[in-house]
C-alpha cells in the first residue's frame, strides 16, 4: 500500500516527522518497504515566465524559449506545443533530478539549452505528457514543489494479509490514532439527496456471495479530466487517472479502503447479483473477454453480466466521456467467493485484493456517500437516495475478553484499567461483565480480531514488546546432553577420509532419475524447470552435479558425500510415498598429488573401501553381488546386500552420463540405504595377551579368481588361532607368471593359551595351504 505523508495527515495529526514515521509504521507491524522524499533533487525547479519564443535556426520542431526567473533569465530549447509569450512554466535548472535523468546544459542542434521546461511526465506525475506543464494562477515567487504537492513523502507499506483494513488511509489513520492517542478525522460524506431520481431495482440472488449491495444514481454529470491534486494522489499511489468519475471511485478506495464501481446508467436496466450461467461471457475493463464458469458471482442486468463481482467491471457498461448519469455500486462481497474467482481467472485488481482479504460490510453506505459527494464536487450532477439491500445480522461482533487470560498470554500482569485503556485507544467499545471480564464490540473493519489472543497481540503491537520480560523454563527431567543421531556419526566417520559433505537440492530431472533408479518417482506438478521435475530417487545425481562442477573448476581430487532423503512413490499404499534416508559417496579425478605420494586415478576400491570401513564401523555384514540388471547410469555396478536384501549399490558411472556432466575422468559412487542401520552397541570382548605372529604367503591362482574366494577358503581351514587375513599384494605379470596371478596374504595368528611356537604356526600355514591346494591354488615358490 502506497501512502503519502501529507494525504495521511488529512485524517490524523501525526506527531512525527516523515523520517521518524517510518519507525512508527514498523513498530505497528507495517513494514516500510520503501520511503521516498518526493522533493529530493528538485531544489533547482523554478517558476518561469516565457518572455520570447523564437524559431530554432536548424530544426523547425524546436523553439528557443527566453525565460524570466525571479533571479535572472534562462534560454531553453523545447519541442513542446503551446509555448507562448506570457505563459508561466516550470523549468528544471542544471542539477535537477528528473525522471529522465539529471538536468544539465546541453547542445540542441547548435543551440545551447540552459535547462528543461518540464512536463508532468518529467516530474514522475503521469505516464505520458502531451506538452510541457503550464501552471495556473502563479507568479515568479511560486514554489513549483509546493504547487505540485511534491513537498511530501511516499511510503510503500507491506500490509500483512490479515489486515485488509490497512489497505486504506482511514485504517492506517486509526492505527496511528491508537498509537498517538489521537482522534481520526473522518472525511465529510454528507450529501444532498434528490428523492425524485429513480434508482434501478437491485436484486441479490446469492446472498452468501453478496450479503450487502447498495446503489445510487448520480445524474447530470460532466465526465472530464480530474484536477491535478486528484491525478497526483492517484498516480503516486500507483493508480492511473482516467476521468473524474472513475478517479473518485479509486480515490475512495484508497481513502476508505472500500472498492466501488460506477456503471453508465444508460447501459444497465437493473441490477441482479447472481451466479454466472455456464458459458456466459464478459468483455472486461482490461480489454480481455472472459468465459465465465457456472457460479462465478457476477453483477448482471436483465441481459448479461456487467461485472465480475468485486473484481472487475465490464467494458460495455463502463463510464465514458459521453456518460451523463451513473449508477454507483458500493457492496460487500464474501472473501472466499471473490478469492475463488481471483484464482480462477488470475485477476488481481485493487478491488479484488481488498474483497478477498475481507472488506468492511458496514462501510458501503458511507463509501457511497463519500464518493457521491466528491463526484458532485468534480463533475456536478444530482444524487439519488441510496438503495441498500442486505441480509439480516450484519453488525458488530462481540467477543469476551478476560484480563487474566490476556495477561497470561503476554506474560505481563495487566490491570483492568490497562486493558480498558488499550480498548479505548483502539476505539473498541466494551462493557464490563464482572471484575475481570469484558464484552468487547469489534468494529466490522477489524475482521482479524477473533478472541483474546488477538487482543493480546493488539496490546503488544501498540505498546511494544519491550515491556515483556524474559524467562526460560527448563524441565527438571530434560535429557541434558546432546542426543546426536546416527547420521552425525556417519559424517564423523567419513570426514577423516577426506570426503566433503554436500547438500543438494532435492529436485532432479526425469532423465537423472531413470539413470539411477527403478523406483516410481514423485513428480512435481508445477516444476520450476525440467531439470527440477522429479523429487530425487537417488542421491547420485546431486553428487554428480556437484562432482562435475568441481572437476570442471580444476579440482584434481573430488571426494564428496551426502546424507539425505530420497523420495519413492508407493502407489496404492496408505501413504503413497516413502522418504528413506540414504548415504552416497563420490570419488572422481585423481588422488591428491604430494611429494611423498604418487597420485593415481580414483577407482572402484576407493568407494568400496568406504563400505568396508562402514561394515566394521557398524559391525554389519554386507555382501556384494554383481547387479543383475544394470541401471543405465552405471558402466559397472554391484549391489550391496544385507541379509539378502538389497541395501545399496557401488559402481562406475557410464560414459553416457559422464558426457552429460562434461567429465572425462572415471567417476565412482556408492549409495547406501540407511533405514534400519544403527550404531552398534559396543561390547567388550576379551583378547589374547600373547604376541601375534604374522606369516606372509603368496598364492598363485588363475586369472579372474576373486580375492573373496581365496579368503573364504583360508577361513575354511578352520584354524581358530587365525586372527586376521589381509591381502597385502596382488601381482600380475604374464612374462613371469604366465596366466596366473599372485596374491600375497598376510596371516596373523594368536592364541589365548600361550605364545605360539614357530613350528605350530608352520603347521597352521601348511593346513591352510592344503585347503588352497584342494582348490588348485599353489603356493608361489
Amino acid at each position, binding site marked *: 500500500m502506497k501512502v503519502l505523508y501529507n494525504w495521511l495527515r488529512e485524517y490524523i495529526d501525526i506527531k512525527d516527522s516523515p523520517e521518524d514515521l517510518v519507525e512508527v509504521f514498523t*513498530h505497528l*507491524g507495517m*513494514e516500510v518497504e520503501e520511503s521516498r522524499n518526493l522533493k529530493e533533487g528538485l531544489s533547482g525547479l523554478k517558476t518561469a515566465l516565457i518572455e520570447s519564443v523564437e524559431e530554432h535556426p536548424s530544426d523547425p520542431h524546436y523553439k528557443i524559449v527566453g525565460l524570466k526567473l525571479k533571479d535572472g533569465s534562462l534560454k531553453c530549447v523545447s519541442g513542446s506545443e503551446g509555448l507562448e509569450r506570457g505563459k508561466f512554466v516550470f523549468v528544471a535548472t542544471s542539477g535537477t533530478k528528473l525522471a529522465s535523468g539529471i538536468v544539465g546544459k546541453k547542445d540542441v542542434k547548435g543551440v545551447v539549452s540552459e535547462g528543461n521546461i518540464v512536463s508532468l511526465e518529467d516530474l514522475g506525475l503521469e505516464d505520458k505528457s502531451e506538452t510541457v506543464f503550464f501552471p495556473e494562477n502563479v507568479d515568479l515567487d511560486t514554489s513549483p514543489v509546493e504547487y505540485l504537492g511534491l513537498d511530501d513523502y511516499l511510503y510503500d507499506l507491506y500490509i500483512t*494479509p*490479515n489486515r485488509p483494513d490497512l489497505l486504506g488511509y482511514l485504517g492506517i489513520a486509526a492505527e496511528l490514532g491508537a498509537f498517538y492517542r489521537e482522534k481520526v478525522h473522518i472525511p465529510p460524506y454528507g450529501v444532498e439527496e434528490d428523492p425524485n431520481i429513480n434508482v434501478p431495482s437491485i436484486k441479490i440472488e446469492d446472498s452468501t456471495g453478496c450479503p450487502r449491495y447498495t446503489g445510487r444514481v448520480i445524474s447530470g454529470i460532466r465526465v472530464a479530466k480530474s484536477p491535478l491534486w486528484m491525478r497526483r494522489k492517484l498516480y503516486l499511489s500507483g493508480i492511473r487517472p482516467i476521468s473524474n468519475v472513475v478517479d473518485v471511485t479509486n480515490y475512495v478506495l484508497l481513502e476508505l479502503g472500500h472498492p466501488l464501481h460506477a456503471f453508465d446508467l444508460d447501459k444497465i436496466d437493473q441490477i441482479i447479483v447472481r451466479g454466472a450461467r455456464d458459458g456466459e461471457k464478459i468483455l472486461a475493463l482490461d480489454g480481455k473477454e472472459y468465459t465465465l464458469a457456472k457460479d462465478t458471482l457476477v453483477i448482471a442486468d436483465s441481459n448479461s453480466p456487467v461485472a465480475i463481482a468485486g473484481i472487475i467491471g465490464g467494458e460495455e457498461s463502463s463510464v465514458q466521456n459521453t456518460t451523463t448519469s451513473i449508477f454507483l455500486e458500493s457492496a460487500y462481497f464474501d*472473501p*472466499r467467493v471473490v478469492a475463488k474467482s481471483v*484464482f480462477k481467472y488470475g485477476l488481481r485488481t485493487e478491488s479484488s485484493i481488498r474483497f*478477498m*482479504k475481507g472488506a468492511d460490510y458496514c462501510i458501503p453506505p458511507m463509501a457511497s456517500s463519500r464518493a457521491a459527494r466528491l463526484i458532485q464536487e468534480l463533475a456536478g450532477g444530482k444524487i439519488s437516495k441510496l438503495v441498500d439491500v442486505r441480509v439480516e445480522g450484519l453488525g458488530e461482533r462481540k467477543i469476551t475478553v478476560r484480563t487474566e487470560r490476556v495477561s497470561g*498470554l503476554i*506474560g*505481563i500482569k495487566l490491570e483492568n484499567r490497562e486493558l480498558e485503556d488499550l480498548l479505548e485507544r483502539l476505539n473498541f467499545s466494551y462493557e464490563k461483565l464482572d471484575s475481570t471480564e469484558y464484552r468487547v464490540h469489534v468494529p466490522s473493519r477489524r475482521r482479524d480480531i477473533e*478472541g483474546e*489472543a488477538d487482543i*493480546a*497481540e493488539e496490546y*503488544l503491537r501498540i505498546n511494544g*514488546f519491550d515491556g*515483556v*520480560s*524474559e524467562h*526460560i*523454563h*527448563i524441565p527438571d527431567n*530434560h535429557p*541434558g*546432553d*546432546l*542426543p*546426536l543421531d546416527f547420521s*552425525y556419526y556417519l559424517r564423523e566417520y567419513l*570426514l*577423516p577420509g*577426506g570426503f*566433503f*559433505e*554436500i*547438500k*543438494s*537440492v*532435492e529436485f532432479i530431472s526425469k532423465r537423472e532419475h531413470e539413470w539411477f533408479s527403478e523406483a516410481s518417482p*514423485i*513428480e*512435481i*506438478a508445477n516444476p*520450476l524447470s525440467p531439470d527440477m521435475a522429479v*523429487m530425487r530417487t537417488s542421491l547420485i545425481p546431486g553428487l554428480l552435479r*556437484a562432482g562435475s*562442477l568441481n572437476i570442471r*573448476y580444476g579440482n584434481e581430487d573430488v571426494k564428496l*558425500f551426502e546424507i539425505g*532423503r530420497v*523420495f519413492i*512413490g508407493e502407489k496404492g499404499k496408505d501413504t*503413497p510415498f516413502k*522418504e528413506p534416508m540414504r548415504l552416497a559417496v563420490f570419488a572422481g579425478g585423481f588422488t591428491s598429488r*604430494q611429494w*611423498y*605420494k604418487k597420485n593415481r586415478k580414483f577407482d572402484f576400491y576407493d568407494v568400496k573401501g568406504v563400505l568396508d570401513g562402514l561394515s566394521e564401523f557398524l559391525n554389519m555384514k554386507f555382501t556384494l553381488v554383481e547387479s543383475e540388471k544394470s541401471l543405465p547410469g552405471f558402466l559397472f555396478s554391484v549391489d550391496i546386500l544385507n541379509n539378502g536384501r538389497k541395501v545399496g549399490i557401488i559402481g562406475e558411472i557410464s560414459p553416457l552420463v559422464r558426457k552429460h556432466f562434461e567429465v572425462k575422468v572415471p567417476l565412482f559412487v556408492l549409495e547406501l540405504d540407511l533405514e534400519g542401520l544403527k550404531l552398534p552397541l559396543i561390547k567388550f570382548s576379551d583378547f589374547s595377551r600373547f604376541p601375534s605372529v604374522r606369516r606372509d604367503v603368496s598364492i598363485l591362482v588363475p586369472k579372474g579368481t576373486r580375492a573373496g574366494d581365496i579368503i573364504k577358503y583360508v577361513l575354511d581351514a578352520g584354524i581358530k588361532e587365525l586372527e586376521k587375513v589381509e591381502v597385502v599384494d596382488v601381482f600380475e605379470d604374464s612374462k613371469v607368471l604366465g596366466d596366473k596371478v599372485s596374491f600375497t596374504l598376510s596371516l596373523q595368528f594368536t592364541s589365548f593359551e600361550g605364545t605360539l611356537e614357530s613350528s605350530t604356526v608352520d603347521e597352521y600355514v601348511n593346513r591352510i595351504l592344503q585347503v588352497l591346494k584342494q582348490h588348485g591354488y599353489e603356493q608361489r615358490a
Partner: protein
Amino acid sequence: MTEAENLRREIEEEIEKASSPEDFENIRIKYFGKKGLVTKALKSLKDLPIEKRKEAGALLNALKKEFEPLLKKKREEAKVKAHKKSWDYTLPGRRILKGNLHPLTLVELKIREIFSSLGFKFVDGPYIETDWYNFEALNVPPHHPAREMHDTFYVKNMPGLLLRTHTSPVQIRTMEKIKPPVRVGHIGRVFRVDAFDASHAPAFTQFEGLYVDKGVSFRDLKGTIMHFIYELFGKGTEVKFLPTFFPFTEPSAEVYMKWKGEWMEILGCGMVHPRVLKNVGIDPEKYTGFAFGMGVERIAMIKYGIKDIRLFSENNLKFLRQFKI
C-alpha cells in the same frame, strides 16, 4: 719432541679439520684402530729401553684415554648434527587430508546443542505433506489470503499432496502424538516456488521449535529466543521484536538483531493460535504454547557473512573447504 707429543699434535690438527662422523671415525681408526699409529707405538714400547719405556708408555696411554672417548663423542655429535640438518622443515608434511561438514550441518549442530540443553527433543516429519498438515490444521483454510505468502509445489497425479512450504506441519504431527508438555525442535527442508537468486531458493532449510504447556506466555518465548541469539551470536547482541502476522500464531512477532551495524530479520515466532491447539485436540483454555521458525541458511549467512544463498546448494569445494571445524 717425543713421539707421543708428535702424535698428540697430529691428532689435534686432524680433529680441528674434521666435521663429519666419518672424519672422526677415520681419525679414531688411524690412531687407535688395531693398526693405528698409537696402537702401534704402544706395541713397539717393548723395543724401548726399560727406563724410557715407562714414561713413553704413560704418555701414549694418556693419549688413548683422552682422545679415544673424545673422538667417539665428536663422532656422535657430528651424527646428530648431520641428522638434524637432514629435515627440511619447510617441506609440507604428510598431512591428514580431512574433509569437512557442510556449513548448514555446522549450524544445525549448534542449534541442536543450544535447544537440547533447554530440554527440547528433536523430532522428524515428512517433506511431502498433505494440505491439512501444511495449511488447514495451521489455520490456513483454502483460499485464505495467507496462502499467497507461500507458493507451493504440488505432486503430480497425487491430488492433495504437496511439498511442505514450512516446517510447521511438524507442530501438528507432534501434538497429535504427544500431549502437553510438548517441547520439540525440528530441522528439515522446505520448498517454495521461488527461482534461484541471491536470496531465494526453491528448497531451503528451516528450524522449528514448539513448546506447549500450562502457563506458557510470550515471556517464555522471548526468554528462549534471546537465549538462542546470545548463544549463537554472542551475549549482548541487540535484539528487537516487531509485530507481524502468521496464521498459526497469535500474537506473532518477527525478531531482528543488530549485526555489524545493521538490523537483520532472523526469525518469526508467536504464541500458538488457539485454533491450532483445538485442531490437535488440545484445550487452549488449559494450555498455551509458543512456536518459532527460522531459515537455517539465513542464520548461516549472517554468522559466516555469506551473501548468496545459492552457495549452499552449489557445493563448490572452494566454498565447502572454508568451514573447517
